[in-house]
């Protein structure tokens, strides 16, 4: 009898391992694609340029100060500046088209919570958190990019570090889920 091959080189085993790996990999790729890739926006909005010019986040997303959602600017707000600041750019032409048609811009949200998570910006902003803490450094992005691994453990981790004395409240399920 020949020296038998090691077990992982025998066809049955290797095929099953390959299958398992393929499934895992497929799941991983689709998961990354579905949650971590940057969605295509109707207008490739250059956050970096706006932030770079010194626009504060709350100018366009003012809801953070008093409400749960930051809010998206309507075309009025965009046009408020851009009808003065006329610059040739295909993206700005798109904006002009929306304004001309008086249509809302169908933004695709990037930082969004599932329906069963009731996130409220206001307490976080009141607690002194900056936007970059969660949304990343927008001065380095054009369109907003999803931040990796923003999951429940990430929330809890921060809650524990930032306000250990309020852990009872901040780890309570009903703080976010109801």
């Amino acid at each position, binding site marked *: 009898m020949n020296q038998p091959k090691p077990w992982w080189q025998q066809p049955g085993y*290797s095929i099953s391992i390959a299958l398992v790996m393929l499934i895992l990999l497929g799941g991983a790729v689709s998961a*990354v694609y579905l949650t971590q890739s940057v969605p295509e926006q109707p207008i490739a909005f250059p956050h970096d340029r706006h932030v770079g010019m010194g626009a504060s986040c709350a100018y366009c997303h003012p809801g953070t100060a008093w409400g749960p959602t930051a*809010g998206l600017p*309507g075309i009025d707000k965009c046009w408020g500046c851009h009808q003065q600041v006329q610059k040739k750019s295909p993206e700005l032409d798109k904006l002009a088209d929306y304004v001309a048609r008086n249509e809302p811009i169908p933004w695709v*949200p990037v930082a969004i919570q599932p329906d069963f998570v009731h996130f409220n910006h206001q307490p976080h902003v009141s607690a002194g958190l900056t936007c970059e803490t969660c949304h990343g450094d927008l001065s380095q992005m054009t369109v907003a990019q999803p931040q990796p691994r923003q*999951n429940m453990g990430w929330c809890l981790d921060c809650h524990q570090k930032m306000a250990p004395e309020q852990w009872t409240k901040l780890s309570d399920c009903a703080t976010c889920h109801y």
Partner: protein
Amino acid sequence: MSNTISRRDFLKLAGVGAAVSAVLTGCGPMARYIVRRPYTNMPEYNQAGLSTYYASTCRECPAGCGIIVRTKEGRAITIEGNPQHPVNRGRLCSRGVTAQQGLYNPDRVRNPAFQARADASRARSITWDEAVGVVQNALGSQPDQVAFLLGMAPDHLFDLVSELTSITGAPPPIRYNALSTFEGRATLVEAAAQTFNQSALPYFDLANAEVTFAFGANLLENYLSPVAYNRAYGEFRRGRLTRRGYLVVFEPRQSLTGGNADEWIPIRPGSEAILAAALNRLVAEARGIPASPAFSAVTLAAAAAASGVSEEKLRSLADLFASAVHPLAIPGGGALAQADGLVTARLVLNLNALVQNLGQPGGVFLAASTPTASDFAAVKDLVQRMADSKVKVLFVHGANPLFELPQSLGFVEALAKVPLVISFASFPDETALASDYILPDHTPLESFGYQRVLAGSNRPAQSSIQPVVAPLYDTRATADVLIAAARGLGGAFIDGLPYRDEVDFIQQKIVPLIGAGGFYTAPEVLTFWTRWLQYGGWWTPEAGLDAPQSAAAPEAAISFAAPLALEEDKQFYLIAFPNHFGDGSGANRPWLQELPDWMTTVTWNSWVEIHPKTADELGLHDDDVVRISTPYGSVEASVYRYPAIRPDTIAGQGHTALGRWAEGRGCNPAQLLPVSVNAAGDLTFGTVVASITPTGKRRPLARVESKEGIYGKH
């Protein structure tokens, strides 16, 4: 290929797998499939994620409760009571809180249409310009051939139509709603006019009363202003530190009010008048007041014999009433829907006069608003005119006569003789489907208006209605349609109706309120209008209603009709009663259908209540379908063995149209009702003699209670 995977590669892949699974186990939502549209022009008061609140008025029944609607991103989310409103003080009933299911009902009429009386081959959608043209032509026809039938239409629309008809000289609009019949509203007004010499609805201060006798008045369900009376009931029971209120209810079938009473006196239907007379006499004797000669002929024995209540019981009840500090007697509902209902109402009001509680805390006041509802006699008259082909155009708004009116009245046949029927219904109800045109009005949560508080407020009040959401569909306010059409006719209409549109009309109508001593005022109408919308209406800061100055007891001796005789075990008194669907228009609210009936916990269906003893004698079991026949018609319904009803009485509640949740459900007791009226013109539905035939079918009722647990049956 796999053979080439080295151990090293394997570990690498495993590492990827681990990273991936970390993503998978805590992955976020799939953001890329959600598109978010900001407002093109976001109103400055509206912030995504935050609620906006609008004050308005509930129009699920005519009571006029103040509501506050919480909206988010232009959607009406929840309806809450207006805490400042004098009728409901922040409280609401089940119909009020489910009103969004009317607004967002998928079966709404979405655009004006030539309905062609359900002739699908000719039916088509029309534009509003065409629609206004149709209305204009209709209004231009000979005035005495135009009729308006309004039901739950808001007060401003009623006022507008009244003005319109007064200009043309057409008969005034008829405002009829099944609820007003079930309350005995016309009888109450007439009794108040005869007793207090003032034509107004009485307001009963239940909250401050100590002993309350209710004669058929279903205070807690559908009586004039149910939320106000519910609120008062709470105070009546536990609002004072001293004494708990004591409630006695006289009615043959235990209603929710009877169920909450300390004593429920199951009297024979039709014996209310003699019973009230006997109590009058006993109370007068106990208080040492000379009794009116009208009661001299009444003997206790006769009252006891007629009503089935023992003489001792009557005596002790009279003593209880006479010796109480704040006694109160309330007539209403089935007690007034008798041939001698007006007498009953007068006698019960007179009981209050005997114990001198008029204008006292816990006594009787007169509501501030002028009653505008028509009685059943007026409807009968209209149907007669229609049947005689004297009506060429019929406008219907807020009413569903095909459903609400007794079948024996012949409305169907009469309607066929009207060449042009225009319905302003928001929902495809029976009448709308049988009309020529449906010109849908906005639903109440989309419209402007005002509503005079019916009888539930201890102060003069007018409630404002404003849209809380933009109209969902291509509907138009009926007031706008009428104003546009009428002004289009020119002539007298231009001067008679000097209004641009509905809002202009309302603003002109509220001008008198500016200086009327409300809790706010304003220098000019537009500021006043803003506040009026913001507060949900107008009312005075202090409670205060007119009290009746004097009371006139009946003078002449009254002769009492004996209650209808029954053939033992064959015939029964039939009592029709409304439940939380009100006049039936609530039936297309699925949550109202899902709500259990108060007493029987039955949902989604109609039933007939039979005392278990009677049911045993007839060999009827729960859920057996029986046919109930009266001289006027018959319906089929499932049996509910109801332990709180007189054994010689049965009671019963359906729709053939009105959308997916109402269609084909239950039966319509209006098919069983007579068309006779009492002296005040109210329908005498109180005693109808019915017979029961088992059909051999079974249709289980969807009840929330466990039949096994409650009644011990499997």
